[in-house]
């Protein structure tokens, strides 16, 4: 005689609970968190290097850098004046616990804007809620117009998709319209920003979107704290 016990427990339940705690902690310190994801080499750190100088004029910025090894990225980001904390994970994604530990270690005062630069990987990071407010996927055009359709989850779950390295388009067979259509097919509501971190093209629109969404999160956190939620 067998007995079946219904559980319906998400495998990542523990992570999801910790992510909720992170979100509450961020709210209590007035931190807006952005989870930046991409394949390796798409330009996450470069995007931060190019975006932070403008953002720092308005916000105190912090960055949690995830990499398998080295603190090269944190060193690069620190040159912009932002506070950067490197975590070496030996895993293919960041989870909510790692983010919490890094946040506690590096940001006793909580920045206004926290970037979490995830591990370079187009698959696993999409499954882990880190407690962020906004998810951004960065993609370099040279990776190919078909990839968003082949790896839909990360794109689908992103609020914004930044298409980097458009300066390389003339040297590839990728058509930007086709790539944008491919992102739109799996993520119809994401804002899409074709940019070149190298030339600076398109970065203004991306930074404007970010500033607008930082303001939205701050309004939401302020009204939640007024209501005592």
């Amino acid at each position, binding site marked *: 005689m*067998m*007995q079946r016990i219904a559980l319906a427990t998400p495998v990542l339940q523990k992570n999801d609970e910790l992510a909720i705690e992170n979100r509450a902690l961020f709210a209590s310190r007035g931190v807006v968190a952005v989870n930046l994801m991409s394949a390796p080499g798409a330009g996450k750190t470069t995007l931060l290097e190019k975006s932070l100088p403008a953002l720092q004029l308005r916000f105190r910025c912090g960055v949690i850098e995830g990499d398998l090894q080295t603190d090269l990225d944190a060193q690069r980001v620190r040159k912009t004046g932002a506070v950067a904390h490197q975590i070496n994970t030996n895993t293919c994604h960041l989870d909510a616990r790692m983010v919490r530990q890094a946040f506690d270690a590096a940001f006793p005062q909580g920045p206004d804007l926290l970037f979490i630069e995830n591990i370079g990987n187009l698959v696993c990071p999409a499954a882990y809620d880190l407690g962020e407010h906004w998810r951004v996927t960065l993609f370099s055009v040279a990776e190919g117009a078909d990839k968003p359709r082949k790896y839909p989850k990360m794109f689908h779950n992103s609020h914004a998709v930044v298409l980097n390295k458009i300066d390389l388009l003339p040297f590839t067979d990728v058509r930007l319209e086709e790539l944008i259509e491919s992102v739109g097919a799996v993520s119809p509501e994401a804002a899409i920003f074709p940019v070149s971190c190298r030339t600076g093209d398109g970065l203004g629109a991306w930074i404007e979107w970010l500033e607008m969404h930082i303001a939205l999160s701050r309004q939401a956190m302020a009204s939640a704290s007024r209501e005592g939620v």
Partner: protein
Amino acid sequence: MANREAARAGAPLSAVGVRLGEMSGVVEEALSFAFDALKADAGAAQAELVVERVAVEALCPHCGSTTRPEGELILWCPHCGSPMRIVSGEQMEIAWIEVHAPATAVAPSIEATPVAPPAAASSRAEWETG
């Protein structure tokens, strides 16, 4: 997690039912391999893994229709052309466990249903009611 629940039920684990969305990113073969590799050390050498795949289902908030995109994912509503949202197909969950019926009663917080041995466990109806 499954073992902990089995321990609460006070009986050895005989099967674990896992529900995996087509968009969960989990490779079923890799999961089975890992399950078989780990189960002996987890004290559940006889336990069987039963996987149910869940198709991707998208809802159009504009016209209210639901679609199961076949093959390639395209989230523009085929009826009205609006953006659709995925409502199912991303899950990765332990749906149920099966234990050899214990002598003692099961902890009251857990909904327990006696069922036939796991041979019949993959039928659609049981999944949906499980």
